[in-house]
């Protein structure tokens, strides 16, 4: 039975110390993978302490930029070819430069769209907020959310408290 616990901190330094300690802690039913930091701004130095957490957005981007121009060009060219009248004075039915222009736009459009799709998937959004969310996180506080076996919760509680946490929230039972 796993449950959540969230602690709020005033600034990054304090949160960093907590994470350092958690990193060194070996506790049954607790893993560093289950630690989530919630913060009002980005925090690369804190994230480093959480270990490697890969981001897959650019894979989507790659997919987008590969598929976009191919489908775009095929669509445009075959639409031109199947246009019921095909003769256009001075230009071939399938002209290269205009199709390149359109392909380019398709390239960017599909790149952008796939990136955003990838982002949403990465965010796991739209989704429900976890019940352990404190609006102060979006203002100026750093939150550390840990998911662990219920047995580990009191210990974590202690650790948080040790580092002068402002507030500790646990799941209500």
């Amino acid at each position: 039975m796993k449950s959540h616990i969230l602690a709020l901190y005033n600034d990054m330094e304090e949160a960093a110390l907590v994470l350092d300690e958690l990193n060194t802690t070996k506790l049954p039913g607790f893993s560093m993978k289950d630690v989530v930091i919630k913060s009002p701004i980005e925090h690369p130095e804190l994230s480093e302490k959480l270990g490697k957490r890969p981001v897959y957005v650019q894979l989507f981007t790659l997919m987008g930029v590969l598929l976009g121009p191919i489908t775009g060009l095929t669509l445009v060219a075959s639409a031109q070819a199947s246009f019921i009248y095909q003769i256009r004075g001075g230009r071939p039915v399938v002209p290269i430069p205009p199709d390149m222009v359109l392909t380019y736009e398709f390239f960017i459009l599909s790149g952008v769209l796939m990136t955003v799709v990838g982002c949403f998937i990465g965010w796991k959004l739209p989704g429900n907020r976890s019940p352990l969310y404190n609006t102060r996180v979006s203002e100026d506080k750093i939150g550390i959310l840990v998911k662990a076996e219920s047995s580990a919760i009191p210990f974590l509680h202690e650790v948080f408290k040790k580092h002068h946490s402002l507030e500790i929230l646990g799941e209500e039972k």
Partner: protein
Amino acid sequence: MSLNNLIKNWTSFRARRPYLDQYKNADYKWAMVIDLDACTGCNACTTACYAENNLPVVGKERFEKGHAMHWMRIERYWGEGESVPVDMVPDKGAQFLPMMCQQCEAAPCEVVCPVGATHHSADGLNTQVYNRCVGSRYCSANCPYKVRYFNWWQYADFAWPNPLELQLNPDVSVRSKGVMEKCTFCVQRLRESMDHAKTDGRLVRDGEVTTACAQACPTSAITFGNLANPQSQVAKVWKNQQIALEKDEQKKDENMRGYRIFEEFRTYPSVVYLERVRDLEA
């Protein structure tokens, strides 16, 4: 709509018109010759065009704003240069030029139409499909001859007060507001005679069909016909005047009068003008 089609016919999709001998084996290529030495500027052709093609009379106020709908206009110039002295006497007469759609083989208007309302027909006409037109007016902007006319108003509402509308040619659409229109080489006549010829299992004979302007012209300054038929009068004149459809610069004898307007823009017009002749010693 298939990739297969695209690959199979790739070479034909990449062909550009005009090319050498393009109309050698084709059935039709409609073309025109206008002899400027014979043209007197009398406006018979323009009135015939109004009658044949349901052109609206726009009235003075709209004419003033530049909303005139004459598909064919007779231009009158006083000189060739860029400025003229005030005391010039036009002692060589005026220069008249009937100007209508040149039915370019590589028409600048066709390329830019966003919806393909103007395109090229197999018989060499620069078409304008009214019911496809959305009225972006790009074609007119890109036409070097400025021979495309836009329906700025719903002319049908006032140009033919009853019973004037009884004169309207039922073979030609009355255009609604917001569409572009232009000279069609009287396509309704062409298609009718082509249909009849097809029923008879032959091609249209030279002189069997002609445009309203050519038919009216009292001096027969306008010759219309099928360039693909080497026996036609038009083809003979083109050949005689050493004009090749697919060339943008003609190499011809000095004493030949044929020329096409704005050839340097590579529009490959289908209308050959014959130079005006003046007895400069008179």
